[in-house]
């Protein structure tokens, strides 16, 4: 009776989508922080190519994390 009452698909969807989203955002944002800090260090060391490379990592990281959030909200709004 209990097994029949549970919508396994919905439950699995909740589990994997939430784990995937939270881990992805945390990793991407941490990478963005790494990029920002390293870019600042490279700028002080006058290494312009490395500065640009790390700054790009930081910007892309923040934009990617933000786009994951926006995409998730759009999906929920469409289904809601």
């Amino acid at each position, binding site marked *: 009776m209990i097994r029949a009452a549970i919508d396994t698909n919905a*439950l699995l969807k909740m589990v994997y989508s*939430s784990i995937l989203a939270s881990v992805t955002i945390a990793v991407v944002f941490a990478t963005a*922080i790494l990029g920002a800090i390293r870019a600042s260090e490279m700028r002080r060391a006058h290494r312009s190519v490395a500065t640009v490379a790390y700054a790009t990592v930081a910007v892309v990281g923040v934009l990617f994390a933000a786009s994951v959030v926006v995409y998730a909200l759009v999906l929920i709004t469409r289904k809601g």
Partner: protein
Amino acid sequence: MAIASLLNFVGAFISLKVATTIAKGFVDTDAVTTTVVFAGLVGAIGWNVITWSYGLPSSSSHALIGGLVGSVVAAAGWSAVNGAGIVGTLIVPAIIAPIVAFAAAGGSILLVYRIVGRLRPGPVSRGFRLGQLASGGLLALSHGTNDAQKTMGVITLALVAHGNVSASNFQVPDWVVISSASAISLGTFTGGWRIIKTLGTRIISMDPAQGFAAQGAGAAVILAASSVGYPLSTTHVISGGIMGAGAAKRFSAVRWGVAGNIVVAWVLTLPAAAVFGALVYALATLFGNGVGGPIVITLLLLAAVATTFARRIAQAQPAPITS
């Protein structure tokens, strides 16, 4: 706090699946009368007041559903309760969601420390503090999507019982959505800091990276649950996230005693609120099936609230100076 309450308001408009689950998923709508909804609400409030007075962090959401189920059982018997719906869409997700938040936050913080672990802690903390503005906002938004909808579901259930909304062509009226969204955002604005203080300091004292991971995991779980219509306790989910972020760094850093209290209150809430709901329904029907019972109980509740406030004010008065 203003941003959090605004995002609570916005979140309430994102989805209506949880409201539909509350209104249609747990009890037979034909068995619901306005007295049943009233008794369920008073039962939930009664249990919440008791747990708050003892400092137990219980779930208002589970109390709401428990109170409603109890009053329906008292009114129409067990056959009016959708046991499969309660197990499948309330109890099982309620057990799994905090565990998922625990795992997601724990996994996230381990990976985060791997990435930023060798950097200077000052700039890393500043970065995650900025990130927490976004993750905290997302958590407030997710709170609005799930918790505001529970209120919408109960109000709509009362409207179905009163005949204003058709049970077969079920739709949450716009004014219900707007008023529930306003209520939850005002509640966050006026009293949200108490919950923030409890969750932010009592379970574990966190660094900004842990806060970011816990908030992100909590928001992701609540939003995913809202999208499939599961009414979760947002308190339990974020508690799971906080414990996961804390335990991943150092298992003993989590105050497991506080965590144990949360679990005890969580297990007790559904049956206790159901008993309260049933008792209130029985008391209300002593005065007939009309509005007499709810009016008498409301007056009794107002008298109890006034007495409590009067006692508080008397206790707060300084003792008279005697020479």
